[in-house]
């Protein structure tokens, strides 16, 4: 087994130790879903359709968005990376033939396997309540394009978190930056409102930003909010952003190391 395979297994074990954190996160998920249900239920009262979508379609969109976050969302990777830098733990990686990005990516993948399992569990618990509202399209291409889109979403989310974690090379405290970016990502990623409800001009700007591909894009493919042409174009833009962000992560790492001082034994 490769060294990154081992890192994945260790990551799997350590994430299972913190299973209660994921269980608590699942509980929050129920509350978020309840807020969405109450708010959008009230908005749809008397309106059969909003932006061309029924209440069921909008609720399905939010359920998929939430579940996607369990599978591809970067939760606290930025914080873990910044702690590695601040505490000097990163020094051990400088002395070994290990690529830190690949190592962190392996741990991230392990964490998503565990949180994904909790996401499925949360969905199974919620299913009796939301089953009547779920409205998923049945075209096969949606799954065929949605799965690679999810993979690229994971890469974009991780690369962004990695870059923010790297800020610890320059700043003592990065939590402010992380939460600042979280607000932007939450809004422009379509976690607050489906982005297709934005005015067309705003939507056409947002669709070229990386945040668009952090949650909305795969959810829009899977829930039928966008067609085949849009999905194919979007995949190309998403692949471009994934490439740019991975390159940026490598550049920030190299630049950060020039600032780094490894002290002690």
């Amino acid at each position: 087994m490769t060294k990154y395979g081992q890192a994945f297994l260790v990551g799997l074990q350590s994430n299972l130790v913190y299973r209660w954190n994921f269980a608590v996160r699942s509980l929050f998920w129920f509350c978020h879903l309840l807020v969405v249900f109450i708010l959008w239920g009230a908005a749809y009262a008397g309106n059969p359709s909003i932006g061309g979508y029924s209440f069921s379609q909008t609720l399905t969109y939010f359920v998929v968005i939430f579940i996607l976050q369990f599978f591809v969302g970067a939760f606290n990777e930025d914080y873990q990376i910044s702690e590695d830098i601040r505490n000097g733990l990163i020094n051990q990686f400088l002395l070994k033939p290990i690529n830190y990005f690949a190592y962190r990516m392996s741990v991230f993948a392990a964490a998503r396997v565990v949180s994904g399992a909790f996401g499925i569990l949360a969905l199974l618990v919620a299913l009796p309540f939301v089953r009547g509202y779920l409205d998923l399209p049945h075209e096969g291409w949606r799954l065929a394009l949605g799965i690679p889109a999810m993979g690229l979403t994971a890469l974009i989310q991780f690369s962004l978190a990695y870059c923010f974690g790297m800020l610890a090379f320059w700043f003592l405290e990065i939590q402010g930056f992380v939460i600042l970016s979280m607000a932007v990502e939450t809004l422009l990623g379509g976690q607050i409102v489906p982005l297709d409800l934005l005015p067309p001009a705003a939507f056409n700007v947002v669709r070229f930003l990386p945040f668009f591909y952090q949650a909305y894009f795969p959810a829009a493919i899977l829930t039928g909010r966008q067609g085949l042409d849009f999905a194919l174009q979007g995949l190309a833009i998403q692949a471009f952003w994934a490439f740019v962000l991975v390159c940026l992560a490598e550049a920030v790492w190299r630049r950060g190391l020039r600032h780094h001082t490894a002290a002690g034994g």
Partner: protein
Amino acid sequence: MDSLSRYLRIWLASARYSLVRATMFRGDLFIWASVELLWISVNVIMVAVIYSHTRSVAGWSMYEMLLLVGTSMLIQRFLMGFFWSGIFEMGRNVRSGLFDFVLAQPGDPLFMASTRKLELDGLLNAVVAAALVVYSVRKLGLHPGAGAIALYACMIACGVVIHYSALVIAMSLSFWITSSQGVEGSYFTLMEFSRLPREAFGRLTSILFVWVLPVVVVSNAPAREILHGFQPWWALGLLAATGAWLALAVAVFRSGLRRYTSASS
């Protein structure tokens, strides 16, 4: 009276220390103030997008909804500004034994723990939330008199006390359990409900979020007072909830404190 002026002097000393500290880390203050401003903006954009597709949510117009969101934000920002850091550190200090430091100070432990730090960024954004309230009131063509404004301010104060009490109860759990992780997340999740109109809740959800946990009443009562004038039942309900939650918080804190066995706990 002497005791009150002594506590005021202690609080002023803490406030002065916090202000000096905030001006020392100006970059940090700027980042955190931006974070809070961005979250307020995210909520305003969400309301604007929803209302671009519908005229009413649970009978509330867009500016009525913005008034509710502004009121909820105002309460949250005051809580963050005056109490958040102190109470949040309490959980960590109880585990590490650093709570001894609070007990050694010349005052009531709950007061000393809660008022140690003032967060300037939260208070700066309270001004933004207040501006949102004023803007909404003007757009609604309302002209509340001095009495109505004073009553609104009292209701906001009651809201802050209720939120403060809930947070103290949650953080006091660290006297019994080793980890109070997730408390921050649970607080912000519950706050989402406070931005929803009372009329949007169904019978079942009302029991939990209106009657058991006063998250909805806290924000709806002051907003309704501005919109519809003095409503005795809402005012009395809020006052009763404030007294009950504060008494419960003090009781839970004191009960927890009896379990505290200093640095070895």
